[in-house]
C-alpha cells in the first residue's frame, strides 16, 4: 500500500501528506514480521517517507505483548532483524512456538523441531497468516503457509496476532485514539482478505488499493470493499 521493499509506491507520499494536512491522524498497521519497528522506520525514511516509530503498529510488537502477558517461553521462528522486538523474553525450555516470516527457518529440520514441541503441549502463535507477499521479484509464499504446515501436523490451531484478527485492528485504533469508534476509521490495504475484509469484520470501513499484491479480480473474491 505504502511501499514494496525499499521503494515507495507512487502517490503514497502525496496521499499521506494530504491526510496530515487535513489533521487526520494515521497509524501504519502492518503484518510485517521480518524486521523490527526501528528497522522498518529506517527503511521507510530511507525511501523518502518521514515516519515516527510511534506511528507504527506492527504484529511483531503485538505478538511480544501477547507472549509477555501470558508469560510464555517461545521458540522464535523469526529473522535476525525481527528478534530485536523480542529482546528480554525468556526462550530457554520453550513451551510455545512463535512463527513470523522467516525463510531461514522454513526448512525441514527447523519445522520438525517446532512440530515436536507442539506435539508435546506447546502452543502455536502466528504473527500473521498471510498466504503470500509481494517481493521485488514477484509473489512469494507467506508465513501463513508454514503456519498451516504446523497446524496440519500437530492438529492445533494457531492464535493469529496480526490482520485479519479483530483484536489487532481494535488494539491499533486504541493506540491511535482511544475515543475513536471503529466505524469512524478507514483501513486502506492491498490484501483484500487480510486488510479489507478483516477491517470490515472489526467494524471499520475497508478500502482496497490496486497496488502491491493486488491481482485483478480480488475485489470480487470476499464480500465488497467500501
Amino acid at each position, binding site marked *: 500500500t505504502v511501499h514494496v521493499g525499499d521503494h515507495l509506491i507512487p502517490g503514497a507520499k502525496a496521499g499521506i501528506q494530504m491526510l496530515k494536512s487535513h489533521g487526520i491522524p494515521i497509524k501504519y498497521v502492518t503484518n510485517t514480521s521480518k524486521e523490527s519497528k526501528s528497522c522498518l522506520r529506517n527503511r521507510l525514511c530511507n525511501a523518502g517517507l518521514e515516519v515516527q516509530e510511534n506511528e507504527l503498529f506492527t504484529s511483531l510488537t503485538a505478538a511480544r505483548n501477547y507472549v509477555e502477558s501470558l508469560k510464555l517461553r517461545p521458540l522464535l521462528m523469526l529473522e535476525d532483524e525481527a528478534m530485536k522486538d523480542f529482546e528480554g523474553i525468556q526462550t530457554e525450555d520453550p513451551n510455545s512456538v512463535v512463527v513470523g516470516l522467516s525463510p531461514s527457518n522454513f526448512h*525441514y529440520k527447523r*519445522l*520438525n523441531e517446532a512440530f515436536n514441541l507442539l506435539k508435546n503441549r506447546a502452543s502455536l502463535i502466528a504473527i500473521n497468516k498471510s498466504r*503470500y507477499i509481494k517481493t521485488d521479484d514477484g509473489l*512469494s*509464499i507467506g508465513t501463513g*503457509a508454514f503456519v498451516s504446515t504446523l497446524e496440519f501436523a500437530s492438529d492445533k490451531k494457531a492464535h493469529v496476532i496480526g490482520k485479519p484478527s479483530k483484536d489487532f485492528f481494535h488494539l491499533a485504533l486504541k493506540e491511535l485514539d482511544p475515543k475513536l469508534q471503529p466505524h469512524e476509521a478507514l483501513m486502506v490495504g492491498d490484501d483484500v482478505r487480510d486488510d479489507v475484509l478483516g477491517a470490515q469484520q472489526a467494524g471499520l470501513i475497508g478500502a482496497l488499493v490496486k497496488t502491491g499484491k493486488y491481482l485483478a479480480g480480488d475485489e470480487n473474491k470476499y464480500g465488497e470493499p467500501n
Partner: protein
Amino acid sequence: MLELKGGKVKGVLCDITGVLKESATTADGVAIQGSIEAIERLRKAGIQVKYVTNECQCTRKSLHQKLLRLGFSMSEESIMPPAFAAREVINKENLRPHFLVHDNVLPDFEGIDTDDPNCVVVGDAVEKFTYDNMNHAFRLLKEKKCKLISLGKGKYYREDGQLTLDVGPFTAALEFASDQNAMVCGKPDPLFFQAGLMSLGLTAEEVVMVGDDIVSDVGGAQKANIRGVLVRTGKFTAQDENHPVVKPDLIVDNLKQLVDVILQQ
C-alpha cells in the same frame, strides 16, 4: 478376547512402515517383532496380501529389496506405492510435472515429460523442503495455474524413534498459499484403496486394512467401506485410542496379533 466383526477375511491390505518394519535413517530399518512370521502365516493360509504404502523416499524396487533383506518375502508387484498411482494420473491427464520429491523416488517417474510443467507433484522430500523450493512450487501453482498432486497426505511418521514430518504438512502449506486443494495419490484417497481391492480381486467386505496411521490407514480404508485395524506399533500414540473422529474396527498390539485373530475365524 479380540474379535473382528464382519465377513471372513480373504485378503489383507497391509501398510509397510510401522506395521512390517520401523523406519530408520540408516540401513533398511528394523523388522517389527512377529511381522515376518505373520506374513508367512497369511501366505500359508491362502490369504492374499497387497502392500498399500505411502512410501515415496525410494523406488518400489528399492523398497522391495529392503524388505527382502530384512527377511520378508513378497513379490515386487504386490507393493503399491503412491508413485505408481500418480504415474497413472499423469499419463491419463497428459500432465507435465514439476517434482518436489525425494531424489531416490525419481527413477519411478522416468520417461515422463517435465518441460514447461502444468502440474506440481509433491512427495516426502525431507531435506529438499527448503523455502526456495517451496516458493518455486508455489509460484507454479499460483502464476502458472498448475494442478497440485500429493503423494499421500500423512501428517508424520516415526523414524529413529522420533516423530518426523511427512508430506501432508507441506501439501497443506501449498494448498493454503495457492488456495487450491491437492489431488491425493495414495492413502487416504478412497481410489487408492479401491485399486487395492481390484488388485486383490476381492470385495470390500472380504478385506481388512491394517496400518499405524489412524487417519490415513484406518480412516481412509473405512471411507472406502473396508474394515480398518490399527496397530500399536509405528507412529501410534496413546491419543489414537480415543480419536475424535475415527473408530477403528479393531486395535491390536501388532500385525502378529491381527493374524492370530484372522486365522481364528
